[in-house]
């Protein structure tokens, strides 16, 4: 058995301090702020906020639209994952779904809103085609479509991971037992998926509830909690206490979500092994799912083509002739180029440092007997629960007046904490799969612990490291809600700049910047995927320990 050594303690301390300083203390401080009125400690702020009709309405609105969005997302994601894993539709269609549906992840949510305006709004493509607007895009409808677009990729990935690990041979058993289709569906697909379906629903709900980008662009007069929070903090009249209270309220559904996920865990079970079995060909079913898949992917493509059409045409929607003028203008503008560079710096540093923190935390947790290592799991649970906006706001409260305010460092720290859970769990999963006797073996071969980590662990976890890097980079590139309270004029990012450009109605610039983000993310993602995949594809699933219920918020 491996013994605790100095080196382990030495790298454990900074990690723990990091989380205390950048997660626990700011949150507690914000909670404290919400209880303060002048010099008194009181619940008066809560009472006042609850008495405010606008905020109550916003809360109800958020609840309503997020609920409907989560419901729709869950159903679509389930059907698409089912199409990929349980039908014999053509392989290229399956690939198309897997790629097409997850494409929106590469863009900031605030862009979705403008895409919707340009697709369904008064000047939108759809409006031109149908002669009149199909519906008002501002408000409930826009939010609903935006949230579905935003949460569909995550819900889909969750479902399809889970379905991948369902033992397909049970379909065969069910057929041998003369099941009718409905009973077969229940026992071989629906029942094993119940936990994940619940997880996807809760996840979609919480993501929608706490997102700022979409309501910031298409919210219109329909007040939601995220925009109210923004108004309270950065609006014309500032109410710090109210902001603190709203963010505490925002935490409530997230906390409830985590509690419910723990309960849902009981519905999950693991298949000891996953065997492949040929799926029965069923023409009608396959045709129906193929059409459904095309419609879904088509809808995503049509909407996102706007991003390219608008800035690359002379005078959308009147003059569709091609031009690079808008792109050149953006490139010529010093400010915008600087903003792009800022984003790049933040994303790279977030990814590099974030991977370091997540890897070391997972390493200490999984492969050392260190005392207090469970605190890292706790940290990961909290970062999973706290919405980006709430975290950002707590920094705003806590670091005001400190020299950290307005620096890149605070933005990067916020990103690292905000997106910590997923990379941490990725690293944990890989480390758990590795042979537990490696450290002892290496010690017997006279390696020090640190040397073992460098010579044995790191080379074996490389593919996961690239995936973690790509996750951090992409999210740092697109996040709005996490950093909206933290950026200064010097540290302005592309995603937050888009929010500003909205005021000047510079939509062409918004789309050009979105294209920059999209391309950057695409390059990083494809690059990481490429170096992460082993060159020969001989992957075996059968012996893998299966965990189909990692549900994460960020």
């Amino acid at each position: 058995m491996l013994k605790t050594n100095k080196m382990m303690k030495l790298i454990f301390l900074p990690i723990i301090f990091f989380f205390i300083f950048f997660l626990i203390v700011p949150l507690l401080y914000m909670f404290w702020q919400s209880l303060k009125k002048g010099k008194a400690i009181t619940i008066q702020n809560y009472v006042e906020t609850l008495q405010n009709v606008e905020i109550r309405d916003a809360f109800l609105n958020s609840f309503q639209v997020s609920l409907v969005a989560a419901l729709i997302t869950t159903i679509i994601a389930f059907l698409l994952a089912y199409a990929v894993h349980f039908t014999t539709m053509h392989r290229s269609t399956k690939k198309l779904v897997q790629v097409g549906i997850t494409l929106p992840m590469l863009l900031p949510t605030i862009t979705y809103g403008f895409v919707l305006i340009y697709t369904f709004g008064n000047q939108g493509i759809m409006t031109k085609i149908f002669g009149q607007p199909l519906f008002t895009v501002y408000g409930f409808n826009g939010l609903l479509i935006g949230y579905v677009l935003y949460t569909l990729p995550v819900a889909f990935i969750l479902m399809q991971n889970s379905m991948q690990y369902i033992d397909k041979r049970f379909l065969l058993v069910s057929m041998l037992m003369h099941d009718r289709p409905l009973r077969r569906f229940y026992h071989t697909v629906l029942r094993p998926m119940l936990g994940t379906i619940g997880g996807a629903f809760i996840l979609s709900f919480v993501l929608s509830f706490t997102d700022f980008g979409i309501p910031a662009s298409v919210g219109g007069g329909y007040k939601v909690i995220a925009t109210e929070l923004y108004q309270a903090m950065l609006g014309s009249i500032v109410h710090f206490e109210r902001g603190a209270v709203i963010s505490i309220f925002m935490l409530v559904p997230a906390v409830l979500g985590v509690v419910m996920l723990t309960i849902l865990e009981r519905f999950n079970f693991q298949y000891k092994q996953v065997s492949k079995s040929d799926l029965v060909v069923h023409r009608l079913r396959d045709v129906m799912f193929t059409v459904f898949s095309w419609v879904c992917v088509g809808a995503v493509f049509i909407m996102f083509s706007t991003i390219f059409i608008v800035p690359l045409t002379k005078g959308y929607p009147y003059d569709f002739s091609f031009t690079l003028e808008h792109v050149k203008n953006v490139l010529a503008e010093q400010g915008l180029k600087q903003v792009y560079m800022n984003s790049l710096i933040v994303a790279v540093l977030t990814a590099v440092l974030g991977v370091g923190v997540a890897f070391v935390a997972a390493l200490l947790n999984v492969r050392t007997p260190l005392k207090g290592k469970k605190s890292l799991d706790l940290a990961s649970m909290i970062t999973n629960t706290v919405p980006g906006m709430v975290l950002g706001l707590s920094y705003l409260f806590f670091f005001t007046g400190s020299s950290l305010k307005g620096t890149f460092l605070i933005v990067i720290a916020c990103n690292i904490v905000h997106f910590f859970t997923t990379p941490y769990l990725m690293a944990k999963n890989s480390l758990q799969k590795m042979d537990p006797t490696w450290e002892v073996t290496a010690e017997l071969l006279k390696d020090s612990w640190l040397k073992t980590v460098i010579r044995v662990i790191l080379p074996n976890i490389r593919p996961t490291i690239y995936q973690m890097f790509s996750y951090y980079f992409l999210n740092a590139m697109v996040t709005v809600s996490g950093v909206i309270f933290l950026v200064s004029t010097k540290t302005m990012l592309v995603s937050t700049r888009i929010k500003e450009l909205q005021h000047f109605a510079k939509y062409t610039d918004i789309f050009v910047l979105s294209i920059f983000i999209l391309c950057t993310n695409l390059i990083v993602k494809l690059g990481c995927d490429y170096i992460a995949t082993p060159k020969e594809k001989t992957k075996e699933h059968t012996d893998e320990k299966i965990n189909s219920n990692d549900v994460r918020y960020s």
Partner: protein
Amino acid sequence: MLELKNISKNYKDKKVLMNINLNIQPGEIVSLLGPSGCGKTTLLNIILGLTQQTNGQLLYNGQDISNQSMRDRGFNIVFQDFALFPHLNAYDNIVYGLKNIKEAMSKMEVQEYIDFLELTPHLHKKIHELSGGQKQRVSIARTLVMQPKILLLDEPLSALDGVIKESIKERIQSIARQFNLTTIIVTHDPEEALTLSDKVLIINEGTVSQFGTPQEILHTPENQFVEDFILRQLHIKRHNIYQLFGESYA
């Protein structure tokens, strides 16, 4: 009686099985024995109706079943890893199929099977709480209550520990005798095949190497493959065991 006539199977250009002929009498236990990749599992799937043969005929009691669906043939299989539904307990797994057939057996009859397989104390356990041998018996019970015309077993012993193996062997034999049930077993272990079955079909590279009783195979191996693959292994085993116990046990 089950008859296989000139069964062949190709996957594109690859010949997996070539001209397999085989007669299996009612109540017989027959093992399909061969190294991995020889085509024995493919043959099992063809009998089950899961895989369509490229050429040849299958007859059951004189009736041509070559193009009958898996469902209509009424054969059933116990998988190597048992494939029990993890969300149901042992009992619910056993009676799973009863809801689907019109002339299902009564509760009493089901209980008889449960008693026979000595599963009564385990009925309300969850699947992951059962031992390997218990899972195996639950899986067999689930298949038997469907009253299959032929019972197919895919590597029934390979997932079990040493001691359990011997008792499950006896169990399989007594099932076949008790219910006069034709039983076909796939295995790669010569000892298993020869001690368990009435007849053994040795398959090598998609063709029948020899078909006969264990005695015939032991005493009159028909070719080099049978000698190398089957007999040599058994000789080494016998040698090792004699050495352990001393020659006096011979």
